[in-house]
């Protein structure tokens, strides 16, 4: 239970920071102030300034927005496409459609996701939208597989049988009975994919294929800091800590939610 609380607190903190950045940041994150470049943390600039004199705290706040937006939409893509695929595959278990969906899943799984994400963003142009698509594609099989697995065991249950006897179509059963019963599982997996999405976005931005200037992003802040790390380590430390904290918070929340939804796991202490 402790991990759930801690996870929620950390995630909420990041979320609130991102939300506040829409109405207020200590400084304008895009305004350069060369005379005040590379200021150390503390003083008027809490996290210091970068090589253009931009306020790092404001940039970190706005960067949270980018990371959350990219990862969230990528999870949305994965769920919107993956869940119906999983439900369909389970409803038509053993049919050619099930086989096609699952083999398609295996194929996407087999690709090294980062390499393909780099390929997609490189080909279609670097930017947040293409990063979302690249990360989202790899979320589809994750949700399809987990939905199918959970749905298959539900199809054996009596209440589904009752619904079939009542004459409901399999599509309706999937929507009305199966889907509500896999929601918990999807929330847990969604949290985990969300945190993976944050890491993937950071990696893509770091190599210059994610959100483009002047949009602030944690990954690009790290890329900017790399050549200056020997004399301005604060430029690398804060955005990195922001990524670490966000991902940690989401992972703790995911673990906590899984325990909450599945009391069996809680007792065995995994």
């Amino acid at each position: 239970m402790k991990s759930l609380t801690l996870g929620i607190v950390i995630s909420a903190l990041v979320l609130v920071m991102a939300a506040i950045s829409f109405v207020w940041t200590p400084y304008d994150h895009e305004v350069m102030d060369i005379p005040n470049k590379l200021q150390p943390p503390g003083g008027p600039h809490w996290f210091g300034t970068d090589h253009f004199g931009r306020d790092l705290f404001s940039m970190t706040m706005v960067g949270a927005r980018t990371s959350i937006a990219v990862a969230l939409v990528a999870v949305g893509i994965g769920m919107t496409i993956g869940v119906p695929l999983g439900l369909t595959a389970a409803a038509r278990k053993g049919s050619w459609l099930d086989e096609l969906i699952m083999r398609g899943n295996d194929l996407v799984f087999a690709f090294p996701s980062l390499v393909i994400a780099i390929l997609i963003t490189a080909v279609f142009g670097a930017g947040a939208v293409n990063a979302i698509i690249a990360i989202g594609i790899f979320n589809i099989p994750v949700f399809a597989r987990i939905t199918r697995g959970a749905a298959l065991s539900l199809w054996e249950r009596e209440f589904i049988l009752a619904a079939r006897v009542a004459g409901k179509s399999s599509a309706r059963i999937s929507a009305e009975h199966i889907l509500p019963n896999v929601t918990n599982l999807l929330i847990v997996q969604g949290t985990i994919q969300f945190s993976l999405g944050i890491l993937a976005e950071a990696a893509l931005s770091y190599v210059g294929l994610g959100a483009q200037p002047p949009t602030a992003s944690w990954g690009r802040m790290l890329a900017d800091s790399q050549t200056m790390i020997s004399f301005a380590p604060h430029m690398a430390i804060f955005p990195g800590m922001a990524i670490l904290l966000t991902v940690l918070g989401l992972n703790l929340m995911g673990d906590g939610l899984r325990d909450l939804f599945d009391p069996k796991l809680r007792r065995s202490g995994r």
Partner: protein
Amino acid sequence: MLRYALKRLISLVISLIVASMVIFAVIEVIPGDPATLILGVNARPDTLAALRAEMGLDQPMILRYFDWAGGMLRGDMGQSYTYKTPVSGMVADRVWVSLPLAIYALVLSTLIAFPAGIYAASRRGSIGDVGIMGATQLGVAVPNFWFAMIMVLIFAIKLRWFPSGGFPGWDKGFWISMKALTLPAIALALPQAAILARVMRSSLLDMLGEDFMRTARAKGLTRRQALWRHAVRNALIPVLTIIGLQFAFLLAGGIIIEKVFFLPGLGRLIFQSISARDLIVVESVVMLLVFVVIVVNFAVDLAYGAVDPRLRTRT
């Protein structure tokens, strides 16, 4: 078993064919004409046409696909547009950085994860277990390229124990090259070690609850003997699978770490080729990475099926 292997083999071949088609198709829509890029926008149309013909760009797409895919099968990856050298040669040079890096990272990850996971499981609930599990949470959450930068700051810039980047080449000596790969390998290994330690712990905990463990204790083995002789051995099956999958991940995931340390590996080659619009290099290197990942997955599947017959009937 044979049926299972055959089924896996067919799916391996289909995966490879579809993968090659996807990669080729994606690369084909890349904006920018390589011939124009090489000769510049002021090039004369007839010179452009001649270069396009020389590069085979005037051929229909389907022909170019078979040309490329057939060449890959024979180990001929075509010729780089920008460097005018065979791609296979360029790849061969880079592989000697990327492959040792992946192996080094895999060894490190295993060396960290095994003791950590076994210790945590055997002392479940203790401070040591909680500490290790907390550390793995951090390890999973840390972006490895950031961890790499922090290590450069501490161990290369402040303490000067390791070089901050670059690679001297194996001909300059084994140890000096290994030294250059050490920080990158640690950065790459850390998140994997965290995952592996968690799998090791959880798999071992499963085994510790099994009946055969009680039997082992009942016939007089000490806790430690029963742990090492029976539990650890059986717990290794899922762990080995993860190690197999991790190798593929480390090879492909190394491309970001290579960028942090300016290592002349496959990752650098991909990024350089992307900015130079050197399509043939990009598609060949990506295909090579995908090939390795798919084949390693296949081998893991096969090995897993061999040790656990239940999996052969899995749908």
